[in-house]
């Protein structure tokens, strides 16, 4: 049984790249000077043409301002997107919602400084 469990652990360690559904993180930055919001959506996949971030929604203070549909991912680790948000001001909340093409989504927000 111990050997079986050890084998099991080895398999799991090695096979941990298999499926990644919801994005595991979204790193958001907003440049108040350029008014550009940049989001790095962490989504580790084995084939970014078949399994990717399919949609990104941006909202400002709870109101949807951008819906961006995407057909494949930049690379097998993440998807980077940038948007001009001219009407964001200090204290506003910017929310990024990223959808996996297969299943799952993740939402993160930042407060504009």
């Amino acid at each position, binding site marked *: 049984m111990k050997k*079986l*469990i050890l*084998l*099991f652990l080895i*398999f*799991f*360690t*090695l*096979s*941990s*790249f*298999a*499926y*990644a*559904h*919801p994005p*595991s993180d979204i790193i958001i930055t907003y440049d108040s000077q350029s008014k550009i919001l940049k989001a790095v959506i962490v*989504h*580790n996949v*084995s*084939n970014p043409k*078949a*399994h990717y971030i399919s949609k990104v929604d941006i909202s400002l203070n709870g109101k949807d301002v951008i819906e961006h549909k995407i057909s494949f991912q930049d690379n*097998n*680790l993440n998807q980077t997107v940038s948007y001009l948000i001219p009407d964001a001001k200090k204290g506003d909340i910017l929310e990024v919602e990223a*959808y996996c*093409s*297969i*299943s*799952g*989504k*993740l*939402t993160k927000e930042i407060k504009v400084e």
Partner: protein
Amino acid sequence: MLNIKSMKTQLILYLACLAVFIALKDKNTGFIGVIFTAVLSAGLIESGIIFLKKKIFQISESSIITGLIIGYVISSNEAWLKIVFASALAILSKYLIRFRHRHIFNPAGFGLFLSTIFIGVSLEWKGTYLWYILIPFGFYFVYRIKRIALLLGYVFISLSLFLTQAVLNSYSLPGIFYYFSYFYIFIMLIEPKTTPVEILPQCLFGALTAVLAFVLTEIRVSFDVEIFSLLVLNASVPLLNLLSTKKGGLS
């Protein structure tokens, strides 16, 4: 009275504690609301069915587990009616779709999948990357419910398929440890009532689930490939059981 030795009770306590942990970690009280809605609706619907059938009031542990799983997987900002719909489908599937006095489909998987198809429910898979919690507890549950062969079949085939793909695409592998869908594997895939009991059918169940999910991903279908693959293999359990070495099997 809580029977802490019962696997179902342990799973309920585990999922409930994990939900509180995730809600605190992510500062997401909405998640607890979704869990509560799903558990309450699944519990009440099953209690109602049991009452109609047996004229007794009983809250089944299975319905609580089904509600908890739905609460984890469904998006936190879904309308409560959609959560109730998913829970209702899950519980009804246990009573309406049966073979030889047993339900066929993983109830939570069935309710979630049909809800995504019919009413556009979105899924979130809360906590699926918490490998440091899901793996150790998952091993415990897999060992206790005797589904190690199923898990090995799934992992071995996933490993073979994706390793080949990664090598062909020259992808580096460091850092990928965190991105496995652990909640699916350790909570949904191994559900004992809708999976084979014996070793060979279990291995095939895991392996074929992995193959189907891989193929569907590659052809870019627009639904949850893992839940769908699980349901397809649930439906094939009577066939897989023909390979059983016990009485009634082929070999």
